């Protein structure tokens, strides 16, 4: 039968259940009472022994949230979420606050070992020989369980810890920057996060310091019916540089789980932040049942002159992805970059893209987005590039390419462009293509299997973006791409 038909036939058999991180860790947890109320917000704040200003901040967000509506403009469809049916806080009993490695529950260490995440400082990333060392903050459900290499980083003046710890030990920094990029009024999910955020990472790189190693946070949702609301705050002071990587997985569960994170980046004069994400949340089974709802607000503020923020994301998981890592180019001469690979298979829905807001003079931005849709999935790129009146000589280059595998999936591109300054130069390129039967046959006739052929073609398609990932994650990402597309062709 013709390859297209066979592709369709195979796509029907897609076994997304091959998701290899789908196991559950059996561990005693402490939870907040079910549902969302002022009491739950107070419970979370009290658990974390937070100062009064932070509790007030949360409560203000909670009251604001009560008046807000869920956004419906994204190209994603799902049953209404009952926010009273969720738990907003879950922590392994043994881990009341981060400890040293020696004190971490062995069950947790085993979990991270199984995920290939090195929590012992002498280890490097699994399977990568000679990789540079990476400091890891491991967040399990609502709390950070351990942060590695803290002492060594402290010698360089770099603060890398859970945000809960930062609230205790560096309250002045947290108070100054928290909510300064994504205000509590920003949007439905960011406001919800502001009310109930549990943990996440905090990074401060002082003036003139180049962070001596990659920083990484690894998020794991374990408990059922539990939302994860982490909050990440990264500040690069004048002339500082930091590269940060975020990874995520979750067990396979029949119900959908909510993940509504907020990430705020602040780059002061001449500072640079490179933020990479490899998102591999559970995508749901082959019928589209279960999976993570990933409603995330990520924004970077190039607050200083000649500062630079670069987002690189590889999105392979989640049932629904709703995510637009953005840059506010406030400082003159600042630069924003967004490199994205979004792969959807099965019944996944992706609505993702970026916003580049040019406020300062001589600001520039670059967007390279590669969407790959297979199975019955839908993959939308949504982007905004805007230049405000003061943004003389703003420049943007956007390239959005979509690749379709099979004929039951969809790719959509929704670019918005606003220029209020006549000297702005915006370029936009977009293509949509299909892996053709002829390309596949050519590869097969050279001895490649259908899956090797698709992986090769897709890796070629995403090459421009892969190059922007930290070296040690490139190989893993290539593997992840192959796994995500398993069974997408016959």
């Amino acid at each position, binding site marked *: *039968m*013709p*390859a297209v038909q*066979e592709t369709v036939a195979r796509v029907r058999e897609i076994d997304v259940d091959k998701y290899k991180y789908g196991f559950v860790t059996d561990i005693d947890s402490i939870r907040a009472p079910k549902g969302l109320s002022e009491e739950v917000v107070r419970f979370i704040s009290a658990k974390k022994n937070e100062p009064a200003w932070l509790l007030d901040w949360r409560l203000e967000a909670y009251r604001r949230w009560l008046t807000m509506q869920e956004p419906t403009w994204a190209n994603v469809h799902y049953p209404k979420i009952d926010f009273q049916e969720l738990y907003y806080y879950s922590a392994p009993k043994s881990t009341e606050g981060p400890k040293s490695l020696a004190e971490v529950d062995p069950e947790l260490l085993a979990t991270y070992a199984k995920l290939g995440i090195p929590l012992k400082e002498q280890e490097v990333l699994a399977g990568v020989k000679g990789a540079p060392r990476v400091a890891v903050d491991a967040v399990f459900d609502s709390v950070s369980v351990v942060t590695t290499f803290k002492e060594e980083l402290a010698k360089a003046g770099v603060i890398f810890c859970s945000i809960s710890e930062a609230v205790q030990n560096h309250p002045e920094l947290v108070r100054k920057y928290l909510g300064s990029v994504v205000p509590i009024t920003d949007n439905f999910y960011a406001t919800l996060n502001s009310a109930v955020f549990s943990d996440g990472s905090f990074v401060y790189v002082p003036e003139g310091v180049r962070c001596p190693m990659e920083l990484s946070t690894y998020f794991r949702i374990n408990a059922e019916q539990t939302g994860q609301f982490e909050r990440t705050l990264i500040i690069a002071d004048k002339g500082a540089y930091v590269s940060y990587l975020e990874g995520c997985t979750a067990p396979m569960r029949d119900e959908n789980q909510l993940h509504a994170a907020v990430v705020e980046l602040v780059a002061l004069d001449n500072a640079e932040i490179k933020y990479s994400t490899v998102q591999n949340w559970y995508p749901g089974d082959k019928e589209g049942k279960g999976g993570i709802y990933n409603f995330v607000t990520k924004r970077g503020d190039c607050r200083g002159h000649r500062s630079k923020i670069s987002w690189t994301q590889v999105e392979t998981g989640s049932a629904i992805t709703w995510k637009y890592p953005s840059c506010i180019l406030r400082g003159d001469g600042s630069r924003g970059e967004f490199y994205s690979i979004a792969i959807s298979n099965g019944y996944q829905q992706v609505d993702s893209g970026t916003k580049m807001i040019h406020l300062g003079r001589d600001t520039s931005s670059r967007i390279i987005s590669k969407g790959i849709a297979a199975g019955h999935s839908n993959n939308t790129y949504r982007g905004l590039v805007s230049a405000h009146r003061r943004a003389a000589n703003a420049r943007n280059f956007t390239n959005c390419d979509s690749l379709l595998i099979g004929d039951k999936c969809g790719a959509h591109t929704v670019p918005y462009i606003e220029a209020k300054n006549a000297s702005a130069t915006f370029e936009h390129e977009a293509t949509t293509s299909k892996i*053709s*039967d*002829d*390309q596949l*046959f*050519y*590869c*097969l*006739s*050279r*001895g*490649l*299997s*259908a899956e*090797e052929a698709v992986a*090769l*073609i897709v*890796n*070629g*398609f*995403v*090459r*421009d973006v892969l190059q922007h990932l930290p070296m040690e994650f490139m190989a893993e990402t290539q593997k992840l791409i192959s796994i995500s597309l398993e069974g997408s062709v016959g």
Partner: protein
Amino acid sequence: MLEVKNLHVTVDDREILKGLDLELPKGQVHAIMGPNGSGKSTLAYVLAGKEGYEVTAGSIHWNGDDLLAMDPSERAASGVFLAFQYPMEIPGVATMTFLRTATNAVRKARGEGELSTPDFLRLLKQKAVALKIDPEMLRRPLNVGFSGGEKKRNEILQMALLDPSLCILDETDSGLDIDAVRIVAEGVNALRSKERAMLVITHYQRLLNYIVPDRVHVLSDGRIARSGGPELALELEETGYAEFGEAAA
């Protein structure tokens, strides 16, 4: 020995091959000539296993193996190689990467063990030099922006790397100037051996000045209409395919 017996092939409900018989022993080079639309490329694709070419009757055996029971990658592993008339472009995939992936896929399937990167590069360099291939070409994405000559030389390079026992060359001379034809033909001739069979499909006799065949078959209306020695190609050059149903050009 390639044995094709009473091969009937339908494409989009139209019968293209109508009882084709062909025997090609190891160590020989046979040419398939014929007018446009006689089914030459169909034969090439059916041998390599392309989807959409439905075999309604007949058989194809290579060294006793039933090719029709194998998928294209299995055929590649068992030694079948098709040099495409129109090689496909794969953006973003360096030619060298593709060549290494293909070489190792075939070696693995044959139980020969994959080549290490340095060993592969040594082999590649040696084969590329013989075909006058610029190393810079190997770093470019596969066939993207290649000239006609570069594409065809790249096909022959793949043939040399994959070490096939049955080589099918589909209109390898089309779109090439005379110098390129000569380079490609030299590459092909270097691969002639007692263990290898070659099927050279061409519309024009020109290529056969350089790759001299043991036998020439004329394909017309889906069957072998006539067979002979190399002199048959010269005769066709004189008379054209008029007697095989195509008006003289």
